[in-house]
């Protein structure tokens, strides 16, 4: 599903953000991307989302080199990807329902199809009853779950999460990770960037460790 082929990324002044990162994530696989702040996790995710292009090497998703995409093609690629942020980034002037419906509206789903899909996504994160309230009235954990519902509502083949538990307490973090595990079991490829050791160690998934832009470790967790 995801192929990083000796990917390097240099910014102005030859500042090295990633150096010859090489890994492959199979369809339906879940992996953690870990490392300290500034190690290169965000750069890797930006490359994967097509927000930046690699200085050398190739980033391929489902066989497509992302460097070859631009404009409408790149937008179409992003519509097949679900993204969960540390800050759920919800629109406060929209209801929970409309926030979750955003990817569907952007992708051009018919208005008659949207309610069914939105309510299915909200029920997966146990927020069906909050559909018509403003996100302002929800707790931090609930807002994060709305963000997750928004990321999965269009049933993406690839889910990318950037510090999804960064603002949550351990109990809520565990709950969010359980949801990711369920999605993985449904066949979704998931890459979770996190620097929280407790989260990574609690689950038996593959760990990609990045340090100073280099992939220094790639292996399975202890539990299974």
């Amino acid at each position, binding site marked *: 599903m995801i192929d990083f082929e000796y990917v390097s990324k240099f910014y102005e002044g030859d500042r090295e953000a990633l150096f010859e990162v090489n890994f492959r994530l199979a369809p339906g696989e879940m992996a953690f991307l870990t490392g300290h702040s500034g190690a290169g996790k965000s750069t890797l995710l930006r490359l994967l989302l097509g927000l930046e292009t690699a200085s050398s090497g190739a980033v391929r998703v489902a066989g497509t080199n992302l460097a070859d995409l631009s404009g*409408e093609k790149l937008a179409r690629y992003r519509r*097949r*990807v679900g993204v969960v942020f540390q800050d759920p*980034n919800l629109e406060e002037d929209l209801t929970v329902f409309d926030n979750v419906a*955003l990817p569907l*509206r*952007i992708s051009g789903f018919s*208005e008659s199809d949207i309610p069914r899909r939105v309510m299915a996504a909200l029920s997966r994160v146990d927020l069906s009853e909050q559909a018509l309230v403003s996100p302002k009235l929800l707790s931090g954990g609930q807002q994060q779950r709305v963000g997750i519902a928004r990321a999965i509502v269009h049933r993406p083949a690839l889910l990318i999460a950037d510090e999804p538990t960064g603002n949550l307490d351990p109990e809520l973090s565990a709950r969010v990770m359980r949801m990711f595990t369920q999605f993985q079991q449904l066949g979704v490829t998931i890459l979770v960037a996190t620097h929280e050791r407790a989260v990574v160690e609690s689950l038996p998934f593959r760990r990609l460790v990045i340090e100073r832009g280099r992939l220094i470790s790639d292996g399975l967790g202890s539990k299974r």
Partner: protein
Amino acid sequence: MNRWLSDHRWAIADALKRVRERPIQFLVLIGLLSILLAIPGWLAQIWLGMSSLVPEEAVHSEAIVFLSNEIEFEERIELERMLGESPIVEHVIFIPKSKALADLSSSDGLAPLTQLADDNPLPDALQLRFVFSPDSGVSELSLVERIEFDPRVLSLRYYPSTRIQYGSMLEVLAFFGAGFSMLTILGVLMTVFLVSAADVVDDSKRIKLYTLLGASSRYIQRPYLYRATFLGIFAGFQACLAVIGLNALLSEVIINNLEELDSRLGSIPLDTRILLGIVMVSVASSWIGAERAMNQRLKGIH
């Protein structure tokens, strides 16, 4: 088609929501843009109004052509014939230098000049009276220039009619009016550009989110462009109301003068083309201003 309708309906709803979120900004912008648009609209209205004013008793242009002293009789007759055949010359009258001297002598204090009759220093002259004939394709000025360079002619005095003077004034007014109008339209463009650019900066978080969710640039731009279109429509209509109001006010003030100038003119006619033009320019310049700003800023964000 369904997708297209759905996208546009969503964009219009989003644009209206933005208007509701910042009503004061929207109203102030409408006021500002309508003032900027009313200025060229009003100038155009004045210009068209003035163009339609044709005094009933407009004085005809005249020219006195002083003939060279060495000119032969036949040459003078040929010149008279050539001028008389011009479609814009009503008549040509020959004034011999003896008559000119007599006329001059009859003026106060110049009686002794008659003593110079044997050595008359004045040249013979032709008096031309022009006729207004816009369809002839010949202008008075071009004919006057041609005569001036004729070797049979010593010099020429041209007395343009009020119509010609008025026309020249209108040309100058149109030139400055067009320049000033361009500046104000540029002002509208710049205003909408700056406001839209500021909106993009304000909404950068939202725009980044939409980008990550797979929204195309067109999808992201659409609500902003619709808002700019609403702005253009409202500002255009308000500018039209301002022009109509100013026209009524001015008509009230100068109505008596107008009637004296031309009894057919009871008021300054309001040209609907101007009103239509104001609305079209308003919408187009607002849209272009917003589109340019969005394109530039989105490139930076993407």
